[in-house]
């Protein structure tokens, strides 16, 4: 049915001649926009119902006092399913530290939460198959664990703003009414609308760029500059990705276009992780609890780990 709509728009509405470049680009654009937005709506809804069972307060309870590798692994996994908007980052950080979650474990959680996004995971699955999706989740979780362990080992507790240690929060006393299924449904529906409103432009713009590359860019254009032959492609992708920010779901169409044009998987994943995990707005928010040096160390460790992962996958696959 989506093909039918794409056919109708391309040949019926705009009267384009089939098999021309313009027609091919427009057809790709319409078909993919509809497909991705539809998938997104369904997935976000299902995921938000699941997420309503995993508030960050529960993550905090589970993680307090855990320093060993198990703590990092658990933090990285909880980061995937636990929802929190970036404006909650500060209370979240303080709440974790204050209730005895070690600094490194807190970072594992803070890294994995935006980077390993279950929406992106399921979209990757739908568009590229389970192999790439599995690759994405394992690398994301690994980066979160490794970076968190390194930060924990460096003993950087003195680089957290002092006032953080002085806040005494109540133990989660919140006696909350249990949500009914209807509440969860209403919440999920609202959240889905909210996300769609926020990312549809990214998604459509991403697909438009993808469609353009699809129809116009020569097959070997990207490969010549960023292909396996260029040893600096991975760090370059990370450098370009760091200042850019997009929701993980918004990067998928661009990833799709890049891979279609022969960019190696490691380089593409490195780019995607740099875009989603490191962002200027998040740094500014975290500045309220972290001294600049710790933010610098955090960005440095992330960039290095992501670059390493990029090389690893280019080399393995």
């Amino acid at each position: 049915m989506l093909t039918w709509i794409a056919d109708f728009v391309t040949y019926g509405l705009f009267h384009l001649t089939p098999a021309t470049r313009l027609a091919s680009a427009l057809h790709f654009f319409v078909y993919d926009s509809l497909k991705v937005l539809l998938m997104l709506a369904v997935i976000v809804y299902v995921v938000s119902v699941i997420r309503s069972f995993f508030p960050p307060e529960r993550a905090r309870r589970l993680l307090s006092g855990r320093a060993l590798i198990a703590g990092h692994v658990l933090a990285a996994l909880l980061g995937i399913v636990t929802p929190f908007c970036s404006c909650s980052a500060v209370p979240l950080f303080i709440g974790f530290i204050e209730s005895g979650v070690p600094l490194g474990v807190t970072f594992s959680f803070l890294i994995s939460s935006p980077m390993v996004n279950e929406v992106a995971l399921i979209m990757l699955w739908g568009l590229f198959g389970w192999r790439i999706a599995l690759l994405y989740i394992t690398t994301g979780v690994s980066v979160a664990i490794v970076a968190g362990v390194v930060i924990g080992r460096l003993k950087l507790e003195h680089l957290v703003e002092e006032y953080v240690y002085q806040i005494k929060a109540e133990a989660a006393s919140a006696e909350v009414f249990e949500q009914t299924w209807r509440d969860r449904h209403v919440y999920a529906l609202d959240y889905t609308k909210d996300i769609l409103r926020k990312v549809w432009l990214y998604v459509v713009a991403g697909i438009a760029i993808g469609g353009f590359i699809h129809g116009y860019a020569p097959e070997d254009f990207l490969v010549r500059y960023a292909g396996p032959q260029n040893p600096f492609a991975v760090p370059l992708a990370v450098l370009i990705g760091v200042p850019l920010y997009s929701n993980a779901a918004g990067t998928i169409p661009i990833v799709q276009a890049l891979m279609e044009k022969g960019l190696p998987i490691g380089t593409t994943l490195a780019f995607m992780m740099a875009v989603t995990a490191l962002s200027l707005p998040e740094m500014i928010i975290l500045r309220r609890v972290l001294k600049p040096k710790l933010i610098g160390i955090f960005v440095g460790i992330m960039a290095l780990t992501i670059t390493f992962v990029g090389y690893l996958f280019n080399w393995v696959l």
Partner: protein
Amino acid sequence: MVIKILGTGCPNCVRLKRAVVQVLEEVGVRAEVLEVKDIPGIMSYGIVSTPGLVINERVRSYGRIPGHDELARLIRAAMIES
């Protein structure tokens, strides 16, 4: 009735406040709606995800914006209690 919106002023907190005010009007309940924006103040309620909703000093929800019906239910329940 005193309702507090816990949050640093992010868009979700603003949205929650607007929703609360609207529901109060529909239900016909008079309440004082306050905003708690400082971090220690927010954290003293034991939540780590915003926006939080506190009715008569009891945390009723956090980390999400309750839907219209849920808000109405929470407000009515608090009215019967007090």
